[in-house]
């Protein structure tokens, strides 16, 4: 479990064994988007959490086991939905492209 996924957000200080982490990056034409908002929706589509992306376009959630949807809002772009599966003890890495 040691060592962050290539290109991913550092997991220093996160007890990965006890968390179901979903994290990743929002990009537009390959460039990070630092002004986006990523929403975590549960399997019924209900809002669970939201984070703004960092200057490097990164985001992270501590979810529970199961299926989730990431909905990404960015200026001058339509919302983008991506399904993702989270599992305790693992890190789901997602790259999201906005238009």
């Amino acid at each position, binding site marked *: 479990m040691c060592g962050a996924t290539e290109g991913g957000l550092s997991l220093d200080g*996160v*007890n990965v064994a*006890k*968390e179901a982490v979903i994290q990743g990056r929002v990009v537009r034409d390959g460039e990070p988007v630092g*002004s986006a*908002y990523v*929403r*975590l929706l*549960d399997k*019924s589509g*209900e*809002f*669970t*959490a*939201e*984070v*703004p992306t960092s*200057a490097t376009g990164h985001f*992270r*959630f*501590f*979810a*529970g086991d199961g299926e989730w949807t990431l*909905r990404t*809002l*960015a*200026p*001058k772009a339509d*919302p983008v939905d991506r399904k993702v599966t989270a599992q305790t003890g693992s890190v789901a890495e997602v790259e999201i492209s906005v238009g």
Partner: protein
Amino acid sequence: MTRENTLVSAQWVEDHLDDPKVVLIEVDEDTAAYDKGHIKGAIKLDWTTDLQDQVRRDFVNKAQFEALLSDRGVANDDTVVLYGGNNNWFAAYAYWYFKLYGHSDVKLLDGGRKKWELDSRELTDELPTREKTSYTATEQDSSIRAYRDEVVAAIGTQNLVDVRSPDEYAGRLMAPAHLPQEQAQRAGHIPTAANVPWSKAANDDGTFKSDDELRQIYTEAGVDWSKDTIAYCRIGERSSHTWFVLKELLGEENVKNYDGSWTEYGSLVGVPVVLGDEPGQADA
């Protein structure tokens, strides 16, 4: 209270950026967000250091609140417009706080920081200067703040509205999913509480839904409009958002925010707790 005197649009704020009697205040969960850029002229309040007692788990008292606003240059007759990230959770918390201490003209920026950013409106890192004032607060308005004994007494008699996400309500998560999950207290919810996630009251861009939509959401969730209501969440900020909806937008009379919320209730010895998706019974 109604939408017209408690909520302003991003355009209204942009039109009042140079109005000296309008004080913009940013309040964020991420207390560093302001430093990276804020609306021109906005000052910052840090909910962890400015608004909370640093020893006891409680708010700053009346004298401390007066000293804080005097120091930041907020006058009693200023129009205070609050905004922040997380769909205004902490701005709504601060709004409730300003009401608790009797500020007469306070409003929320509809959609908060997110709407402002998604509109691609301007942010600056320039720090404003405001002349110090001599601010006078009132005694705390206990009609809008619930304590734990009232909450226990409300089980089965008043509306309890748990505004956390369904997974937190059911006990499957301990905290909003952008925070680590390890916590000391028990998971679950207060018996008989309806689960109406705060997010149901907001559009994706953070603005509030229409009054008709809002009333329908809470009615369908089982809120009895003839009864008093207490809203709670984990630490009292998301429930401030719902308190704002019920009290300030829909104009309901007896609505309280339980700021102790789940981090207090879930640590109490001997109180009933329900797990799972159903509200449960009063004698659980």
